[in-house]
Structure formats: structure tokens, C-alpha cells
């Protein structure tokens, strides 16, 4: 007999199936979170309206959403490059910090009277991208080197290296780069080195464009270049990769260099686009949240920017909600966590087939039984 839910041998993996189950999971998360809103005496509908209205229906809020999304998307892209190459790097907090430090230092060097002197932005930006990419790339590449040549465990080493990077920035902002004053932070970066704002009157800056370009770059590399094919083969099956003439160690180190570079761009975008100075804790955990964005994007580079936008937007909406309706923004953290859990768990749904014919039969039976004649 056909069952309503029939188990599939392989998961349905069409884009429609993935999008459908993901949407379902998001709605389920929202339904559960609604209970918490009720608890605070707020109508869930109003709460959700508030949550999404601010970031996605006001220009001001959207600008903030873009600010949050850019570094998240960049870290997510770094995650995708390294994880798909079989290099399970978790050191994006460190890359973020190193990238921010590199960009900030370069920016400060262009202040009038500083080492380099003022540079035109068109020259400064490529320099900044190149410099922070290289610094972050080497930072992560070092971990890859230890893994490949010495057999170290990249998960542990990369997690630990986050602390080193963080302490390094702490040293910079409380020592050599410290601005005169009480706070351990640098002076405001020279205005000429800020990433341009996209819409007048909002905080949205060009970092999101960097993220979009990076997403296309990563997508093209992985999907379109022989190099990307080699990275993916390395990630799935190193023995087969060696067999195919691929230098597994070199590919993995390259993946580390890419991942670190992308993570560093996230730090650069935050420093040059949003904070406009360096301070301790500049990363604000984005090096980890970005990994979540990568997971929610199912390691698909093109999905990172939209997912980061939704994720960043929800954070903005949560702040707005807290200001307006004094609902603790921690509820949105609960909502976000639920969303992550359920989206990742929703994979199981793709293993089932819904037989609508069963519903049809049910109706038929009902109508028969209602027919006394």
C-alpha cells in the first residue's frame, strides 16, 4: 500500500526541494519562536513584522543589514573554499582580525605625514585588498602548512590561532597604534580610505560589493576552473585526487590561502567600511557566525550573500524590536538558533516523498462512507 510519507532511497536534491524544505524549516522555527513572543505579551505577527520591516522595508535598516551581511558573506565564502577542499579551518576570527589590522595599518599609513602619505582611493583599495588578503592568507596558510607537512590537526590549531590573532590586535591597539586617549583603539582612519557609502544617509557601504564579487569569484573558481575541480576532488577523496595527478598538499595549502584571504577581506570591510578604526573585539564573533552562514548556504557560494543578508537583517531587526517593543533581542538569538538547527535538520525531509494520491483516496473513502444509498 502506498504510504503518505514514502522513504526515498536517495534524497531529493533539486533546487526546488532544497528551497522548499529550507523555507519549511524557517517557518517552523518562526512558529516555535512565536511561543516566546506570546510569553512577552507581544503578538507574534507584530513581532515578525517588526523583525523584517526594519531591515528590509526601510532604507536606513537595509543599510545596516548590508553592513552586517558583507563580512558574514566573506567569512562564509572562506569557509566554503576550505571545507570543500577537505581543510576544516575554523580560524576565521583570526583571519578577520589580521585582515582588519592589515587594512587599518595601511589606512593609517596614508594619513598626512605618515609613512606613505595620502593615496588616491582607486590605488588604495586594490593595495588594501592585496595586503589584507596576503596577511590573512598567510595566517591560514600557516595552519594548512602544519597540517599538510607535519600532520597537525587543523581544527585545534586554527581555533587556538584565533586567540593569538586577537591578542596581537590587542597589543597593536594598546601599544604601537594606540590613539592618545583612554580607550585602547586607534584614531579614526583617514576619511579618504573609507569604503564609499552606497546610499546617501545610510551606513550601507561598498563592502557588500566586495562580497558579491568574491562570491562570483569563488563560484567561478570552484565550478568553472580545473583548479576548482581539483580542490573539490581533494576534499572528497584525497586518494583519488593523488591518483588523478593532483598535488593534494599544495591544493590544500592553496585552499587555506584562499580561505584566509577571504576571511581577511571580511575584517578589511568591517574596518574600512563600518568601524573606521581598529579596536579590541572588532570581529564581534563574525568569524564564527560566518561559518553558520556557510552551513545555511549548504556550502554553495552563490547562496552566501542572500543568506548573510537575511541573517544580518534579522540581527538589525532584533535591535529595532528591542528598542521599540522592548522585547529582549535574545529572543531573536533563540529564533536564529532554531532556524539553524531546523534548516540543518530539514535535510531529512528530502528523504521522503509525499504521496498526494493517498490524500485523494482518503477523500474518496470519506465520500463513499457518507453515501447512505
Amino acid at each position, binding site marked *: 500500500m502506498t504510504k503518505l510519507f*514514502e522513504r*526515498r*532511497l*536517495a534524497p531529493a536534491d533539486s533546487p526546488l526541494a532544497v528551497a522548499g524544505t529550507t523555507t519549511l524549516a524557517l517557518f517552523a522555527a518562526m512558529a516555535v519562536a512565536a511561543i516566546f513572543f506570546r510569553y512577552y505579551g507581544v503578538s507574534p505577527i507584530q513581532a515578525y513584522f517588526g523583525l523584517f520591516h526594519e531591515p528590509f522595508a526601510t532604507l536606513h535598516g537595509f543599510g545596516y543589514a548590508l553592513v552586517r551581511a558583507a563580512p558574514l558573506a566573506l567569512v562564509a565564502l572562506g569557509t566554503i573554499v576550505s571545507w570543500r577542499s577537505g581543510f576544516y579551518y575554523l580560524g576565521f576570527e583570526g583571519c578577520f582580525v589580521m585582515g582588519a589590522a592589515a587594512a587599518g595599518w595601511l589606512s593609517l599609513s596614508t594619513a598626512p605625514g605618515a609613512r606613505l602619505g595620502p593615496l588616491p582611493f582607486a590605488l588604495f583599495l586594490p593595495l588594501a585588498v592585496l595586503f589584507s588578503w596576503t596577511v590573512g592568507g598567510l595566517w591560514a596558510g600557516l595552519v594548512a602548512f602544519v597540517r599538510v607537512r607535519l600532520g597537525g590537526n587543523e581544527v585545534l590549531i586554527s581555533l587556538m590561532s584565533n586567540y593569538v590573532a586577537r591578542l596581537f590586535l590587542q597589543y597593536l591597539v594598546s601599544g604601537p597604534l594606540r590613539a592618545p586617549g583612554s580607550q585602547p583603539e586607534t584614531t579614526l582612519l583617514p576619511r579618504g580610505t573609507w569604503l564609499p557609502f552606497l546610499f546617501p544617509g545610510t551606513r550601507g557601504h561598498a563592502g557588500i560589493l566586495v562580497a558579491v564579487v568574491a562570491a562570483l569569484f569563488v563560484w567561478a573558481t570552484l565550478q*568553472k*576552473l*580545473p583548479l*576548482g*575541480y*581539483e580542490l*573539490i*576532488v581533494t576534499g*572528497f*577523496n584525497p*586518494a*583519488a585526487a*593523488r*591518483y*588523478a*595527478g*593532483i*598535488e593534494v598538499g599544495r591544493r590544500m595549502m592553496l585552499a587555506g590561502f584562499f580561505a584566509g584571504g577571504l576571511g581577511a577581506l571580511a575584517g578589511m570591510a568591517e574596518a574600512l567600511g563600518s568601524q573606521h578604526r581598529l579596536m579590541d573585539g572588532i570581529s564581534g564573533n563574525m568569524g564564527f557566525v560566518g561559518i553558520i552562514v556557510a552551513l545555511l548556504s549548504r556550502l554553495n557560494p552563490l547562496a552566501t550573500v542572500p543568506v548573510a543578508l537575511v541573517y544580518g537583517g534579522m540581527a538589525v531587526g532584533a535591535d529595532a524590536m528591542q528598542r521599540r517593543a522592548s522585547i529582549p533581542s535574545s529572543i531573536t538569538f533563540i529564533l536564529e538558533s532554531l532556524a539553524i538547527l531546523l534548516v540543518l535538520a530539514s535535510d531529512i525531509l528530502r528523504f521522503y*516523498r509525499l504521496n498526494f494520491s493517498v490524500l485523494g483516496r482518503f477523500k474518496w473513502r470519506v465520500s463513499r462512507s457518507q453515501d447512505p444509498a
Partner: protein
Amino acid sequence: MKLTLEMKNIVKRFPGVLANDHVSLTIQAGEIHALVGENGAGKSTLMQILYGFHAMDSGEIFVDSRPVHLSSPKDAIALGIGMVHQEFMLVQTFSVVENIVLGLSEGAGMLDLPRAASRMRDLSDRYGLALDPFAKVGALPTGVQQRVEILKLLYRDASLLILDEPTAVLTPGEKDRLFAVLNELRQGGHSIVIVTHKLNEIMELANRVTVMRDGRALGTKSVRSTSQQELAQLMIGRDVRLHAVKLGSRFGEPILRVEELCVADDADVEKVHGVSLQVRAGEIFGIAGVDGNGQSELAEAILHLRKMRSGRIFLAGTDATQMSVAERRAKGISYVPANRRQMGSVTEMTVADNAVLGLQRRYTRGLFRSVRDARHSAHRLAERFGIRGAGIDSPAGKLSGGNLQKLIVGREITCGASVLVVEQPTRGLDVGAVESVWKELLLARQEGKAVLLISTEMEELLNLADRIAVLFDGRIVGVFDAPFRSVDQIGLLMAGIAPSGLSTRLASQENRT
């Protein structure tokens, strides 16, 4: 102890496939019953139903004429039915006896290993299993691990043993050992079902044989009243030549030359000691030998998948000793590894992606990969080699062993290499797939490629090779020219026994090599 089993009109449907179509099977007490059929004929499904792993859609099962209901492997073992899977279910870090008692609840919550070990020893002695209860399973060779699996079932009082492709992972010596154990068990009244597609083994071991094709049982025969040819015809429904047709070939210059090669394994133990050989264009050079005598190390060193300790390798006259894998491939060598799923393919990627594995830098247009060319190549391979079971855009892991192997062999043959290193090309394949792989290897030879064929199947080497070298303990101990009249001598050399009077002839042949 004795148990008869009847399965009647078993039907099992998977989405899109009728795996078992009214299959009936009777197993008598104390018989070895072979269940044969090509990959996908429904043998495994039937056995998994019997083992309680799958629920059948309809049909009946009787044990000693009583109807039984099997809804889990637990039910099956309670009725005395146990199964040894192709992949062993053993905890590698546990000792043999710990694996044996794992999952049992003997005694009052206390683990009495010495008692279990003594019972285990009794069983082991009775059936000639020769197992040490306190040996770590991870350190045991495959054949011994398989005996641990069998003992696990005997310890649970199983009287019907199902063995799924038991010899696929065994060396010839281990195979003989297993057959001896199975004979002991039969004498002790156990019933045994062997799922296999190696016909010679059936003739050697079984009492009766049931042939399956396309989900149906085509009938049960006594082994005495049938022949390999008849079984093969039943299995695949068309005539099979178990003997390949080999045309004459003109041998050209040596294209692959290996000189004094020494190679160590992962544990840094030297496995190949000074092997020299030459393979000429248009020649299939066979390497015979029992598994584990250095074959894999030899092949991997020729491809540079493994570092060599010393020696030199020449490809088409050029010294390739210092070349990387990619450089050697570019120089015109390709390789069909023994391990299809772990090395020869990336099972998570599509068939089309796998069709260009190793050729990824060649299937490009400008800077970019050409997915169209890759798919085109996959189409060509699927057509020419008859690869069925999954579309070119579905994961290669969905292909059965035989179809995956055809994909790999096809890719390596058609990539334009002049030297082909082939390792165990037909291991675990059904008759139809073996035939088509053989045909392609002979075709490659006809085209003037130099083929180094490493195989543990004598039948394969005798059918295909122009010369056979016997590899024993990492050394070539004899080289024979086709036609091979001295099969017995090859066998003795494989077993490490030097036939008297052969040494002088050997020396002269080795000089010629």
C-alpha cells in the same frame, strides 16, 4: 541444530524496482546452497529479507515447516539464521572474544570473558577456525576476520549461515581455508547459503545452486547435474565465452621499463625487492601472485602514488623516475587501481565528473573547464562500455561495482595513454562485466598499448596475458610465455615453492625480459 528453511513467493518492491518477484527457495539441513546471479539480480535483497533486515511485501517463510515472522536481525538469529556481510561488522580495537560477546547479555550483568573465551575455543577447535580469543581484531588479516564473523554466528547457535560474497576479499589461500571450514560446518549439520557469482567456486563447494535473474529465481539445480556454462547462461540469459578470444598481436618496442625497483609499504616495510620488467607495445604482461605479495606497491610505485626506495622507471624511453604523477600521466601512462571506490573514482561526484578524473586539465576551453566536453565524454563511455544504472549527472557512487569499473577502465583506456597499468580489473564483477572488461583490455592490446595486468585470478591471466610473471614475496620468481602449458608450475611458484629443474630456465627467461 539442523534446520530446513523454505521461502515461498517472496515479493519485494523498491521504488521503481521489483527486486524480488515471487521468489521461492528451499534450503535443506546440512547443505551448502549457492545463490548466484549478476549484480542487481535480487540475491542480496532476498538474503536481507531472510536476515530480517528488509520487510517483504508478500510471501511466506517457514523454518522447519513452521511459519515465521522476521522483522529484525534479532528475530533471525533467535531462529538460528545468521549472516556474514561483505563488509565485516567488527570493532577493530577489540579482541576477538570481545567482538564475539558484543551485544549478548550473558551472565548477570557481569562480563565473564574467560568463560566466553573457553566456549569460543571449543567452537573454534571443533570447526578448525584456529582463532586466538585475545588477539586484537584490527591486527588480523582479512581471512581471519571473516572467521571471527563466522564464529560470532556459531557462538549465537546459528544453524543457517548466510555468506555474502565471502571470497571477494580473500586471497586464494584464505579461500581454501574458508572452504575447509565450510565443509566442516556442513558435516556438523549446518546449512550454508553462499551468495556469489564465481561459478568455479560453486562447482567446488556447493551441493545445490539457485540462479536468480531480474528478481526471479530461475530454478534450483544439483551441482552434479549442471555445468559452469549452463549456470553462466542462466545467469545472464545469453551465451558467455568464459574463454576470451585473443587475436595475434605484433609486439613492438618496450614502452614501460622498470629496473631494480624497491618499494616500501605504509609501515615502511620493504614489499618489492628489486623487480625488473619490460612491457612491449601490443603486449599484455601479466603479474600473477597471491594478494599481498607486493602487487599494489609495485603498481603504485610505477604511477608514483608511492615513493620508491630505489630503482628506475622508463616510459617510452624517457627516464620517468623523478616525474610526478601528473607528469607520468602526461607521458602516457594510465592506471586502473584495485580499489574502485576509494581511489579510482570520487563516488560523491557525478559520472560526468568522474569521466574526466585525472584528465581535468585536458577537458578545458580556454581557462575554464568544459562541462559539455566532460558530459560528452561520459556519454561516449556509457555507450561504448554499456554503463548502466545511473545517468551521467547522478553521483558515480550510485553505479554498481561492475558499471563503475567499466567507467574507470573506459576512462583509462580511452585517454590516449600508451601504457596501461591494470590492477585486479574484474574483482567482484559478474560474468557479463568481466567479459566486457576483458574485451576492452584485449582491444587495447590490439591497438598497440602496453598493458601491465596485475591479477590474482589465474583464469584472467591465462586468458589475456602474453607473458606471465609470478610475483612472490616482492620478487619475480618466474616468467612464462603464452601459451601457458605449465600452469601447475605457475601455481607452485605462487605458493612460494620453486619447482625443481625450473631455476635454470627461469634465469634465462629473466635475462630476456
